[in-house]
């Protein structure tokens, strides 16, 4: 037996690595096991290799049962090392948890996507700029510059006076572009929010309440089988061409696709065990929809919302091209339509609004994707 068997492993020995070489006496626990195969009695030679100098108060925390016990253990003689430690059932229960908050993780994950963050900042800067741009401009968007004989101001290329040039009526293009951008963003964002709100609510009901499935499916088929453009034309002709009417009309048809999409997703979650458990507890329909199903769809909804914004700008372009929008309020669609006839001769008329539409489209695509990824808790650690 080595003599340090009795030695206390005290802090005094702190810097030396302690080696304990022991040979197994015949009566120890290990040798009592069956050894039917006639091999040698095993020799247990163990190196106890704890560098006690390393352990200071900082690293203590990491050890099993918390600081208090660890502190005591360092000053313990070897004998005590091989005695039973206190058992704390609660500590066993605690093994392996982390702090977690859903929205914090969403935010942290979103911030990791650098490109998306930059695009989002650029977009917000653009949005703010559309409101303050009129302060910089020398002219008013509505003012027509061509008066009588003075045609010289038509199609002026961008210069120091007309930063974006002038259009076919000699109007300042700078203020038109920003005013149009503002209109388009407000229109598309409000239409998107509106159609998402309607679509999600109806989609949830459609998917979860079996009795409604038939009705909504037929309604969907009925409306969806006729091209929306026909409805839009009819509405514009019969009710009027104001931007507000068109916005409402777009919401009225756009929710269909969202609702259908949500309905299919609800099918995936409807009969999961946690929903059965809720039904078993007598949870009402509204609570199940908002607490059990809606949170699972957030990332899909965010993505749909983000992608529908550029979609609606494009649609608005189509509508204004067809002349179904109120053309007195400039929007990006109207600018693009007007630029189309002259863009070979005056390409700048097309470039400015097109660049902005592209920027908005790309931004929402990237930011929407990044945000919906971040919303998916599978991507949270």
């Amino acid at each position, binding site marked *: 037996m080595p003599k340090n068997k009795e030695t206390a492993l005290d802090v005094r020995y702190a810097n030396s690595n302690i080696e304990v070489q022991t040979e197994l*006496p015949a009566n120890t626990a290990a040798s009592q*096991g069956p050894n039917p195969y006639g091999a040698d009695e095993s020799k247990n030679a163990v190196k106890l290799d704890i560098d006690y100098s390393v352990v200071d108060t900082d690293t203590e925390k990491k050890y099993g049962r918390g600081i208090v016990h660890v502190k005591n253990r360092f000053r313990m003689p070897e004998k005590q*090392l091989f005695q039973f430690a206190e058992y704390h059932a609660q500590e066993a*229960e605690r093994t*392996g948890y982390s702090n977690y908050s859903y929205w914090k993780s969403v935010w942290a994950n979103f911030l990791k996507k650098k490109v998306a963050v930059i695009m989002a900042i650029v977009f917000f800067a653009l949005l703010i700029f559309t409101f303050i741009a009129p302060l910089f401009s020398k002219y008013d968007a509505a003012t027509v510059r061509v008066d009588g004989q003075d045609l010289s101001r038509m199609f002026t290329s961008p210069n120091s006076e007309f930063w974006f040039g002038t259009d076919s009526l000699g109007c300042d293009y700078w203020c038109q572009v920003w005013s149009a951008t503002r209109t388009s963003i407000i229109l598309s964002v409000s239409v998107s929010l509106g159609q998402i709100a309607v679509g999600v609510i109806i989609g949830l009901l459609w998917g979860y309440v079996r009795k409604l499935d038939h009705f909504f499916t037929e309604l969907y088929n009925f409306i969806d089988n006729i091209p929306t453009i026909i409805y839009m034309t009819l509405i514009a002709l019969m009710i009027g061409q104001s931007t507000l009417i068109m916005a409402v009309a777009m919401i009225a048809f756009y929710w269909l696709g969202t609702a259908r999409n949500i309905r299919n997703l609800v099918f995936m979650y409807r009969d999961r065990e946690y929903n059965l458990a809720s039904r078993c*507890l007598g949870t009402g329909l509204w609570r199940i929809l908002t607490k059990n199903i809606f949170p699972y769809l957030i990332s899909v909804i965010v993505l749909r919302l983000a992608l529908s914004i550029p979609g609606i700008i494009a649609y608005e372009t189509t509508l204004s091209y067809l002349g179904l929008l109120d053309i007195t309020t400039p929007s990006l669609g109207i600018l693009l339509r007007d630029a189309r006839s002259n863009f070979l001769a005056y390409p700048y008329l097309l470039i400015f609004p097109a660049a902005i539409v592209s920027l908005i489209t790309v931004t929402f695509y990237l930011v929407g994707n990044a945000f919906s990824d971040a919303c998916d808790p599978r991507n949270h650690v």
Partner: protein
Amino acid sequence: MSEAIKNMQSSSVEMEFAARAKQVLSTEPILSARDVEVEFTLRGQKLKAIRRCSLDLYDGETLAIVGESGSGKSVFTKTFVGMLDKNGKVTGGNIIYDGKDLAKFTTESQWRTIRGKKIAMVTQDPMTSLNPLKKIGIQIKEAIELNQPLRGKAAKAEAIKLLELVGIADAARRYNQYPHEFSGGMRQRVVIAIAVACNPQILICDEPTTALDVTIQAQILELIRKLQKEKHMTIIYITHDLGVVANVADRVAVMYAGQIIEIGMANEIFFNPRHPYTWALLSAMPQLGVKGEKLPAIDGTPPNLFNEVHGDSFAPRNKKALNVDFLEEPPMFDVTPTHQAKTWMLDVRAPEVQQTIDVDKLSRKMNEPQPSVGEIVHPHQEPDREALVEVKDLQVTFGSGKKKFVAVDDVNFTIYKGETFSLVGESGSGKTTIGRALVRINPITNGEVLYRGQPITGKISKERDVEVIRKCQMIFQDPMASLNERAKVDYIVSEGLYNHHLYENEKDRQDKVKRALEEVGLLPEFSSRFPHEFSGGQRQRIGIARSLIMQPEFIVADEPISALDVSIRAQVLNLLNDLKKERGLTYLFIAHDLSVVRFISDRIAVIHKGRIVELAEAEELFRHPLHPYTKALLSAVPNPNPYLEREKKLLVYEPSMHDYSEDKPIWCEIIPEHFVYGNQAELAQYEQEIKA
């Protein structure tokens, strides 16, 4: 005399072990993994799934790797065939096979020389490993053509031969069928056929029977053993079920937190385990439970491998941990030359600890009637018993017209107040459907369900409806699926309170949640967390707290432990038993394994294809199983004793053995409180069996 035969049989298994041990000591391993380390990168964080794990594999043996989910048993063996997920990487150690170091392999073409040809793999879910759009035969033929010099007709003939080999009758016709035409067990046979198609030297079976029923599992195990002998393969068998281990394994390796903590011959591991975790694992087996006693459970959950593990990874859960366990990782100690364990308990300076259980004794008891039968009075035996739930002529059908499927038919039983009534059957037998019908999630087609003598199905008043909701609750099978992942524990537990305004004010609600969590052994501070932070066992207890807060009288427990790890099952079973005592609860306990419910049940009903075939007091059912299906189920129960398990005779139940064309079967009380389903001729035969 039977004792003498048993001893003789045991000794033949013992000799087998001895021969295997000699081989382990005297021959070179065919595969040798040294200090393997595997790391996964999960969204920027590193997870050490395997921490310096070593293993030798010897020719012709069956090595079982046992461990809980997340212990790394699958990941470790996947490194042998280069099938780690994309974000995983072998970061250390080497795996020597056939003179090559597999840990250094990088390209697919290198792996293709090994994978499938030399080392093949059978995975857990047969449905996902077969292509549903291709004929069974073509899939086997492809495997043959890829790895053997056979083509066309010759390959087809070989494929049919393989199908016959894995025990598929009428192989030539089956060759042209698609996977959906095969049952789960048969699909797994096909997967095995594909795996052995190119005569691999090593076959890795990753939980091949976990998704299967007990009776099918027993058949697959028999098949694997037969194939091993015929093809002289070495098998690595990964499982969490110690009963299965006892059946197949020559040697057993126990894994915990990414390390092998004990390895030895099967008999050494079962009868002389050395690591506290192995002890705990063995003693926590519900099969070995004694009625009226608590199972020795392991608290807590395995460590989170995202964090660095200090000392012995099992120490925080070990009730008899030493101080040194928290400081220093133990080395591998030799117990015998074939048996090593990684625990300070084997150090010469460690105190001696008496092993708490004797697997041999307990497992032999499994096959005998338990002695405590007379002492326990079951609720249904009391003279003033009170019927809590009555099921009358219950029928549940799904679909309509041609697609109509009768899931449950003509089911009658009564559950008395205070008892645990178990419903045992295989998947698709309708047991869950009955449970769900009782809590009214599934509408019933016919018959009625009475609660305290009054119907709760059909049209009932609003107040009665709320009362029944509060009094009848359900615990679900899969703790991963049965909690709303997007809500905090606080909301999940108090959902019932919100629904029926069962609280006076916010503080009262929080107190109730706290009490419910404490009652199921969770810390009150857990209420502000999300479910995904908890382990399976903890989640299951959250589910139990959710139903308890309603103050129910009757709980339907739908396989509450089958999705849990072995070490955690005991926690949940103990909890359910304690709650029953404290609150006088009544349970309908649904399970697929007879042995698990034996020690917690007062009565057991066996259900087959939507019909209850036998119903009796638990011990009576084990003593006098009458219906052939019950007998088959009993014979398939895995026994955690390698000596008994390897000698057991498997009974197979064929429903076609009943001739009900003229003599119609009835549901009959053959002796008091023992019901069985059969026709007159069968009943007469059963009566004789009881007398004998």
